């Protein structure tokens, strides 16, 4: 049941508990308990809204930064990651396989602000060897959702 609940609320976290129960053919209380458990177990870590900021008047700049580090003795990568993700400017941090170690997503109001963060906060960290900053020019799809215009139902209204 967990996987089915997650599959639905991953796409639509605002769905009514009642509807969710009907769709899955389960009773409402059981679904509510399952969700509460998953929250406790940190399987469900939050309920966010997918916003296409490009369609607002808000200025936002996003950058993906490749970071190479030297892992610290006895602490590996986790400790460095923690030092990076504590910054509120940082949206996401992933440990990567391949040519560099971390992918860091930064969000700022201006390019200058992002650049400043990299040069003043990120690069000077003692374990950081190098960074490469890539600015996001346009978001096409995010969290499995295409951000462009909505689609319309082009099917004929009645077919056999």
């Amino acid at each position, binding site marked *: 049941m967990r996987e089915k609940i997650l599959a639905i609320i991953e796409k639509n976290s605002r769905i009514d508990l009642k*509807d969710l129960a009907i769709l*899955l053919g389960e009773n409402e209380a059981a679904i509510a308990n399952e969700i509460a458990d998953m929250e406790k177990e940190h399987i469900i870590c939050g309920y966010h809204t997918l916003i296409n900021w490009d369609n607002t008047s808000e200025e936002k700049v996003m950058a993906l930064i490749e970071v190479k580090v030297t892992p610290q003795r006895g602490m590996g990568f986790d400790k460095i990651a923690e030092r990076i993700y504590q910054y509120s400017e940082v949206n996401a941090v992933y440990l990567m396989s391949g040519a560099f170690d971390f992918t860091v997503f930064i969000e700022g109001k201006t390019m200058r602000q992002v650049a400043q963060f990299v040069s003043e906060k990120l690069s000077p960290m003692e374990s950081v060897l190098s960074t490469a900053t890539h600015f996001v020019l346009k978001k096409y799809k995010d969290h499995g959702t295409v951000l462009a215009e909505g689609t319309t139902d082009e099917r004929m209204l009645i077919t056999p």
Partner: protein
Amino acid sequence: MRNPLSDRIVEIQPSGIRKFFDIVSEMKDAISLGVGEPDFDTPWHIREEGIYSLEKGRTFYTSNAGLKELKVEVCSYLSRRFEVTYDPDHEVMVTVGGSEAIDIALRAMLDPGDEVLIPQPSYVSYVPCTILANGVPVIIDLEAKDQFKLTSEKLLEKITPKTKVLVLPFPNNPTGAVMKAEELEEIAKIVIEKDLFVISDEIYAELTYGSDHTTIAALPGMKDRTVLINGFSKSYAMTGWRLGYAAAPRVILEQMLKIHQFAIMCAPTTSQYAAVAALRDGDKDVQVMRESYDQRRRYLIHTFKEMGLECFEPHGAFYTFPSIKRFGMTSDEFATRLLREEKVAVVPGTAFGDCGEGYLRISYAYSLKNLKEALSRMDRFIKKLDGKA
């Protein structure tokens, strides 16, 4: 001037759906629950394969029976999913949708006067195609009390010395009824005893909820008597690609192929390449779509119950077939008023045979949002009829 038309074709009634379609088309803001096709787009990897085939210039005819690699994939699919084996070289052909396969199967099998048993409510083409093939359609009225399944009593009642073919339309459009293996065994016994043939339209085979589909062709002694029809439209959301197939004993298939050869040449090449990708890598897509239909099916059945609309629980396709008998109106009247007063389009059950009177076909191939809005309008309409609003 002489009458340019054939009497036989003029006598065939246009599809009952057509008339309703014309009314609906005039209403710009109507919400429809009337479609007979998936709400999903064709999965991208399948579409991409179609695009590649165009880029590579594969714009020629294929052989009449279809691409060899597609026929091989069809056979491997049928054996992996339904445990029935066919020879890709002699027992399978690719058609322009399941519809073409229905037409040419009937034409290949019927002599004038041969009777074809057609259980109804069912898809609109079996009767006219039988008439066009010089056959005589004999209707078997299915009933809600049998969950719209074909029972051996009903079958035996209509068999005469002239009966040659039984059309088996399960999982069923419009009722959503399915036939389980043990129920098919009963039918198969009679078919063999009475020396009949079966045209089994299994276009909704992938869309069953609760138990897997069984094909009658897989039952002992039945492969030699069955034309199995399936296709890509419903399971892979590929209606516009117009691609289906028939699997049948070589003697029948050779004659079907002859008609296809002269009337069609071959199914669209682009679609055939796309279909290869569908069968090779599409199982996951089908599974996701099936789960999604199943959820909406539960939603509709649940809401009908709350609305006081009687409906047997369908286990296949993407339709529900609720009864409106208690309102003392015909299906046509009910559907027309629902459209005029609440702007919700549904299909009257009578479009699928006279015994569909008293029922509506309501499709759940819509987003939950769309279903909710349409159902709340229906609820208002029903409350009005019941004098509660």
